[in-house]
Structures are given as C-alpha cells and as structure tokens.
C-alpha cells in the first residue's frame, strides 16, 4: 500500500492564506452548522454578493469548502476531505484484492490440473 498521506504543499499554502482572513474564518464557522447558500451567507455580512463570492472562491480553492450550483442557487458546505481520502483508501485496498484474486487465478491455471 503506497503512502497517500502526504499533503499537497500548494494546498497547504492556499489553506493558510484562506484562513488569514476573519470573514473567511467566520464563513467556515457558519458552515460548521450545516450547508448554506451564498445568498444566505451574504445576509450575515455587510458586503456585496460578489465580494462574498470572492471569499467563497478562495475557501473552495483551498479545499476547505465545496460548492454546488443547483439552478440559480450555489450551496456551500464544509469539505469533508479526510473522509473522501479514507474512502479512496478503501477503493484502492479493494482494488488490490481484485488483482490478488486475478493473480491467484493465474497461479491455479499455471498448475494446470483441476484436482
């Protein structure tokens, strides 16, 4: 099993940069209560929607939140990146088993007999 735990340095930089701003930290705090649309988020701040969207973009680029657009509504939520990473680990582990079983088949075929 290869090492998949090393963080991407660029992502780290973007992450720390994203968190260097009080508004962005506050957005994360609000999303910890559950997902929210950009419009909902904007209602809590004294800034224009485009300005808020800028902050959302920075957080998204850092992998801290993800956004999904449905119709005219863009919904933001905290990115459960770790969970996705663990899920990918299981996928790789199970894929390794697929290959193991194929190799087992090769060995059994090589021996030829069916006894």
């Amino acid at each position, binding site marked *: 099993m290869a090492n998949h735990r090393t963080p991407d340095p660029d992502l780290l930089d973007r992450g720390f940069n994203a968190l260097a701003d009080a508004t962005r930290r506050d957005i994360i705090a609000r999303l910890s*209560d559950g997902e929210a649309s950009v419009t909902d988020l904007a209602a809590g701040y004294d800034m224009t929607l485009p300005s808020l969207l800028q902050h959302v973009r920075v957080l998204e680029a850092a992998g801290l939140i993800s956004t999904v657009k449905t119709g005219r509504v863009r919904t933001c939520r905290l990115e459960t990146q770790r969970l996705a990473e663990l899920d990918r680990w299981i996928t790789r582990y199970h894929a390794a088993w697929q290959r193991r*079983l194929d190799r087992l088949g090769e060995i*059994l075929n090589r021996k030829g007999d069916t006894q």
Partner: protein
Amino acid sequence: MTHQTMAHRTETLERTYAASPARVFRAWEDPEVRRIWGSPSDDVEIFNEAADFRVGGEDVQLCMVGGEAVARVVGRYLDIVPDARIVYSESISEGSVLLGVSLVSAEFIAAGGGTRLVLTLQTAALDGSDLLDGVVAGWSSALARLGGKMVAA
C-alpha cells in the same frame, strides 16, 4: 491534533477458478503460495515475517517496494473450515499508523468441476495519524469546532 474520522465499506468479489475447492484452499493455506498471489502487483514483493495458519494464528506480511517496507499487514485467523471457508481479520499499517482493518471472508464453493470463490471484504479505514499530514484534512472539523467557539464567545 488527533482525528477520529472513519470510513466503512462492504464489498463482495467473486471469481470462478478451474480448480477444486481443495486446491484453491491450499493456495490460501500455504504461506509461500499466498505470498506470491497476495501481492497486488509485480512492483510489490511480499515478505512473510510470520505465518500461522490456524484459528487464532497470526500472519505478518511486509509489503516491499524497491527493498523498502511500505506496509505491514497482520492477519489473524478467526475461522477455518478446510476446503470451504476462511475468515480472518487483516490490519494494514504504515509505520506506526494503522490505516485500515478488514474482515475478510473467503468461501470456496464447488461449481461445475471448479470453484466459485466468494470474497467479502468488510473494511474500515481509520484516521489514526496525529502528524502534520493529517492537518490539511483535519482543518474542516478542527476549524468548525474553533469557529463554533468563536461564534459562541
């Protein structure tokens, strides 16, 4: 910071082999044969550190890539029915970090002169690292907690 994230999945894999259940079973029983097919690819060589194929027995395999151990796999046999079934737990570690644990159930079913192998994997991926490499991923939850405190204050 320590994270307590987990992910779970159950998956069943099936193969049909042109070999009797007894032969397929022996390929699992024999550590030397298992060492060969147990490698997921030609790049990975498996070294058997310990092999004890009996209920309660423990297998320890090192996955070697280019002469370096990249993972340690410990199997503990829970149930063995000759030529029919093997149930064991397999835990995979990297250094001191436990990455995941799987309950592996292998059933060997006679089918048309060959064997249908039904392999069920019940896998839990663990987040046992408290090192820096977990920080990126742990941001969400840690910041959420921190943020919650800031909002509450």
